[in-house]
C-alpha cells in the first residue's frame, strides 16, 4: 500500500509541467529548430520571389501558377513518370527473384550477393559505367557489331527517345538488390508449413507464389512500394546527372533535377520550393490512397486466424 502511494507520488512529481518541459524541452527544441521551422520557412519561401541573396518578396500564388505553364517542368514530370511506369517491374521483380532464390537453387548465395552489389556502388559510378557501356565505341555497340547486329548500334546517350528509359532502367537496376534483400528476409520468416500444405494440395510453384508468398509478405511489399515511389521522385538526380546531365535538351531531366537546377543554378529557390511542396503534397496523397486501398485489399486476403485465404 505504502509502495503504491510512493509510486503515485513519484508519477505525480515527474509529470508536472516543469519536469516534462525539462526532459522534453531540449529534444523538442532540436526537432522544432531542424524539422518544423524549415518546413514553415519553406512554405513561406514558396510564396515569394527570392534569388537566395536579396530579401524574399511576397508574390502570392505566382510560383504555383507558373508551374502550370512551365513546359520544362511538364517534361520533367513526364520523364519521372517513365520511371513510375516501370514500377511494377521494380516492385515485383525483386520479390520473384527472392522467391526463386528462397527455393534453395544452386548458388543462391552468389545470386544474393550479385543482386545486392549494385546497391553498394555509388550512383555516380553507375552513371559513369553506363556512359562507357553505351558510348559510341562502347562494349554494347562493339558486341552488337561483333555478332552481326551492327544495324542496332546506336548513339544511346544522345537518343532523345531512349535516354530517359535508359536512366529509368539504371535507377531500377541500382536499387533492385535492396528489394531482393528485403524480400529474402521477409520470405525467411514465412511459415514453411504453409508451403507444405500447399504442396500437399497439389499447388504448383506459381500457385504457391500467388496464394502463399504474396499474401505472406504483403507488409514488406507495401513498404517496398512506398520506397519505390519515393525513390522514383528523388533518386534519379545523381544517376541521371552522371549519365546524361538531364539532356540532350531536357530528354532526361527528372523532376528532382529540375528542382535542383531552379534552386541552386537558376536563382529561383522560391519557385523550386513551390514545386517541391506541391510534389510533396501530391506524393503524400498518392501514398495515402495506395496504403488505404492496399490495407482494404489485405484484410480480405486473410482469415480470422491470419492464414492466407
Amino acid at each position, binding site marked *: 500500500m505504502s509502495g503504491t502511494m510512493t509510486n503515485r507520488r513519484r508519477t505525480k512529481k515527474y509529470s508536472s509541467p516543469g519536469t516534462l518541459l525539462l526532459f522534453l524541452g531540449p529534444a523538442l527544441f532540436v526537432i522544432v529548430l531542424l524539422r518544423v521551422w524549415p518546413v514553415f520557412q519553406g512554405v513561406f519561401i514558396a510564396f515569394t520571389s527570392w534569388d537566395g541573396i536579396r530579401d524574399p518578396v511576397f508574390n502570392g500564388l505566382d510560383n504555383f501558377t507558373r508551374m502550370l505553364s512551365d513546359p520544362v517542368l511538364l517534361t520533367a514530370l513526364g520523364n519521372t513518370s517513365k520511371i513510375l511506369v516501370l514500377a511494377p517491374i521494380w516492385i515485383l521483380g525483386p520479390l520473384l527473384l527472392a522467391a526463386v532464390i528462397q527455393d534453395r537453387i544452386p548458388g543462391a548465395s552468389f545470386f544474393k550477393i550479385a543482386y545486392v552489389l549494385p546497391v553498394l556502388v555509388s550512383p555516380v559510378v553507375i552513371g559513369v559505367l553506363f556512359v562507357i557501356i553505351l*558510348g559510341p565505341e562502347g562494349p554494347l555497340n562493339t558486341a552488337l557489331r561483333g555478332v552481326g547486329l551492327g544495324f542496332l548500334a546506336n*548513339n544511346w546517350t*544522345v537518343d532523345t527517345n531512349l535516354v530517359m528509359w535508359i536512366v529509368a532502367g539504371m535507377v531500377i537496376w541500382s536499387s533492385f538488390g535492396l528489394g531482393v534483400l528485403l524480400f529474402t528476409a521477409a520470405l525467411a520468416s514465412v511459415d514453411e508449413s504453409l508451403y507444405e500444405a500447399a504442396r500437399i494440395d497439389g499447388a504448383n510453384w506459381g500457385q504457391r507464389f500467388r496464394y502463399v508468398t504474396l499474401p505472406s509478405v504483403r507488409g514488406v511489399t507495401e513498404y517496398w512500394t512506398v520506397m519505390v515511389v519515393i525513390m522514383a521522385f528523388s533518386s534519379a538526380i545523381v544517376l541521371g546527372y552522371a549519365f546524361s546531365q538531364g539532356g540532350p535538351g531536357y530528354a532526361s531531366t527528372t523532376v528532382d533535377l529540375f528542382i535542383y537546377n531552379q534552386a541552386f543554378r537558376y536563382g529561383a*529557390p522560391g519557385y523550386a520550393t513551390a514545386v517541391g511542396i506541391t510534389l510533396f503534397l501530391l506524393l503524400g496523397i498518392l501514398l495515402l490512397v495506395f496504403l488505404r486501398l492496399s490495407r482494404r485489399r489485405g484484410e480480405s486476403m486473410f482469415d480470422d486466424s491470419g492464414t492466407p485465404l
Partner: protein
Amino acid sequence: MEMQRSIKRLLGVASVAALAVGLASCASSSSSGSDDGDETGNLVVWDLLSGSDPNWKAVMDEVDQQFEADHPGVTIERVAQPADPAVIKQLMQAAAQAKSGPDLIMTWAWGDVLSLKPSLAPIDKYISDDQRNQLSGWEGVTFDDQTYGVPIGLQGLGISYNSQLFEKAGLDPDNPPQTVDELISACKALNDAGITPIGGGNKEGYLSGWTYSTLFAGSATADQAAALATYDSPMNEPPVSTAVEGIQSLVDAGCFDPDMPATPWYPDGFEKFQTGEAAMQFTIYSQFAYMQDPTIGQYVRFIPSIENTVEPEFLPAGAMNVWAVTDFSKHKKLAAELALFQEQAQFQQERLDTGSYFPNNKDVSFDAFLAKNPGASSLVDLLKAGKPTFLPAHNMQDSKTNDVFQSQIELAMLGQTTYEDALQQAEDSRKAQYPVLMGTE
C-alpha cells in the same frame, strides 16, 4: 512550482540574451556596410584553384606572404573552395544571409558576378587608372557603371589546327582559314582526304557554346558585343542569330565529327584531335598544353578569330575568373587591395610560366611561353599589337539561359529541333531571367 519559476527565469534571461546578440549583430552589420573597414585583421579569401592546382597555390602562397609583409597586422586565410558555380552560390547565399563570411571570393565573370551582386561591394574607389589600364576584362565585372571585381587572367576561344594534317589535305598550313567560308572549304578538303575536319564532343553542350562564341566575334561589332553585355540584345536576332547560322553552315558542311554529340565526357571530345585523327578543334586558351603533346604538339597552331559576317573587331576572350569583395566584409579596402595586388604582373608572370595561366596584365612577357608554345604566336602577336578582347558571348548569358541555349543548339546540331526554335527558347529564357538577374523583378 519553484522549478517552473526557475525555468521561466531561465527562458527570460535566454530571450534577453538572444535579443542582445541580434541587436549587436544588426548594429555591426550596418556599420560595416558603407566604410572601408579595418586596416588590420584576418582576411578570408575563397580560392577556387589553390585546392586543385599546386602551381597556382605556390604563387598564391607567395602573394600571401608578400601582402602580409607589406601590411603588418594582416593575416590571410586562403580557403580552397570547389570550382563549382552552384556550390559557390549556395555558400554565398548562406554567407549573405548571415552577413558573415569571406572578405574576398573568386568567382566567374558576368553571370556569377551579376547573380551575386547584391552581396558584393563596388570597388571603383580602390582602383587607380593605371591599375585599370594594366588589366583587361573589366566588361565582365562592370554593371550600372560600377565595378564589382578584379578580372583574373585571360580565357578565350579559337580554333587549334594540326598543320601536318592540313598539308596532307593539300591546305596551306601557313594560311589557315580566316572566314567561315574558308573554313567550310577546308572542311571539304579534309573530308575528301579522309580526315575528320573538326573534332570535339558536345556531351555537356559546351561545343555549342564555344563555336557560338568564336563565330559571334566574327558576327558582331564591338558595340553589338557591348549590348550583349547589358543583356539587351535579343537571342533570336542578329548578331546572335547570325553567329548561330554560322554554326548551322558548319554542321551542314559536315565539318564536325559524326560521333561528336555522343562522346562520353569532356576530355573524350578532344581525343581525335589529340591522336591526330581530327585536323581542327575549338579550344580555349588554357588548352595550349596541346602544343607540348608528344604526338601532335609540334604541328599545333592557333586561329584566334574567324570572320563570319564582319571582320573581327575583338578577340573572344575575357576574364578567366574574378576576385570580388563581399558586401559584408569588414575589410573592404584591404580586400580590394589584395585583389589588385595578386593580379600584378609579377604574379601573373609566374602563373603563366609555371601553370600556363594566360595573363590579362599588359606587362607580362610571353617570351618563355612562346618558346614552349610557338603555335600560339598568332594570338600573342595580336595581343601585343593591342587587339581588344571582349568576354566570349556564351559567358554573357545567365546560367539558365546558357543551359537552354547550349542544350537547344545541341539538339539542333543533332537535327532534333530547328535553330529558330532553339533561339526562340533561349530568347524566352533571357526575357524571363532578365529581371531576376538585374534585380528589377
